[in-house]
């Protein structure tokens, strides 16, 4: 337990080991630890951001879904209206067509009726003349009695 040169030896060794630690040990390890701290902080930040993004995306999806549903409802509504319109139109058309057909048929009937009447009339004239000739036993001068005959025919 004497104070001797060990004292100086320890001082020198102490300085050397401090220098070695300062030069070769401390900087790389501290740098690595700082880098890891930074990476963890970055990772946490990125996770936070991703979570926020996810939340935003979810909101967007909900929004889009709602608007799409609304649009679809509008489209279906329009389609329904259009379908009713088309049916109504078709009904109207059919009704008009029916009316038209009915009218033309009526006209045809009337035409046929009047034609038949004309024919009948002319035949009646001839028959009346023939009958009258027979009754009078003389021929009627066609020209002299034409007016009379026509009058008769018109009365038929």
């Amino acid at each position, binding site marked *: 337990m004497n104070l*001797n040169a060990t004292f100086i030896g320890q001082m020198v060794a102490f300085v050397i080991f401090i220098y070695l630690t300062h030069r070769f040990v401390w900087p790389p390890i501290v740098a690595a630890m700082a880098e*890891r701290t930074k990476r963890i902080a970055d990772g946490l930040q990125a996770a936070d951001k991703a979570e926020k993004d996810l939340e935003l995306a979810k909101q967007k999806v909900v929004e889009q879904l709602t608007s799409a549903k609304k649009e679809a409802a509008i489209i279906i509504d329009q389609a329904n209206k259009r379908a009713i319109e088309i049916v109504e139109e078709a009904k109207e058309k059919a009704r008009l067509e029916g009316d038209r057909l009915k009218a033309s048929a009526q006209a045809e009937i009337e035409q046929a009726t009047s034609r038949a009447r004309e024919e009948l009339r002319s035949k009646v004239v001839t028959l009346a003349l023939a009958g009258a000739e027979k009754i009078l036993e003389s021929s009627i001068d066609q020209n002299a009695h034409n007016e009379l005959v026509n009058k008769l025919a018109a009365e038929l």
Partner: protein
Amino acid sequence: MSSAEHAEVLTSSEYIKHHLTNLTYGKLPDGTWGFAHNSDEAAQMGFWAVNVDTMGWSLFLGALFFFIFRSVAKKVTSDVPTGAQNAVEFAIEFVDSNVKSMFPYKNKMIGPMALTIFVWVFFMNAMDLIAIDLLPEIAKLVGVSLGADPHAVFFKVVPSTDPNITLGMASCVFILILWYSITQKGVIGFIKEFTLHPFSSSNPIVQTLFIPVNLVLELPGLFAKPVSLGLRLFGNLYAGEIIFILIAILYGAGYLFAGVAGLIQIVWALFHILIIYLQALIFMVLTIVYMSLSYQTDEQH
């Protein structure tokens, strides 16, 4: 191993004395250089002698510290750390947080210095936990095989029980205190610390009268720093070692006492773990605090 044989040869006081004597290399009384054969011879060697055992273990443990930490630093990764890197990072983070909380100035030396002190002193102290006779007996076998007198092979394995070692480190810290005080405050500022505190006056004549008083009060405080730093570590570990030696003596006093000794040794070793850690921590913390104080420029009392 051969306690019966020792009991014949050694008395208790001789056993204690043997354990407390360093293996000293220096100039022998007859003028040649060699190992001292007893503590008186070692004392006569004067200053120019080396305690080969404690110096050697100190260097070995310092190198061990450096190689463990250097091997980690070489392949250090900022990815997930494994095994040794975890332990080393734990130590460095612990030291770094201590430095950051106590030393708010910019100095790249303080961190590495605190780490060196903490781990190195911890290793030195931890040598106390190795069975007290194991390494000295091995040294004795080696020494005897080399032709030495078995009673002259002294071997102290705990470097921090040698005041040379602890005071050596404390002196380095003291030199750093002086160096940083002067570089940070200037020579004038540093001298003012001892002459104008704690008593100061605006009257120049009164102030001149105060200077010697201030010197008497402040200078012992300055020199007490390294002395208390070194002797605290030395004293704690020296006391711990002596208790281990006394417990070891108890082993030779019959079966009953040997059983008691075993129990006491376990208890003391467990308690000593605390001292080993605590003294390393105190040495480191005080060093940081002293450095911080020498950086403090606007000190007001």
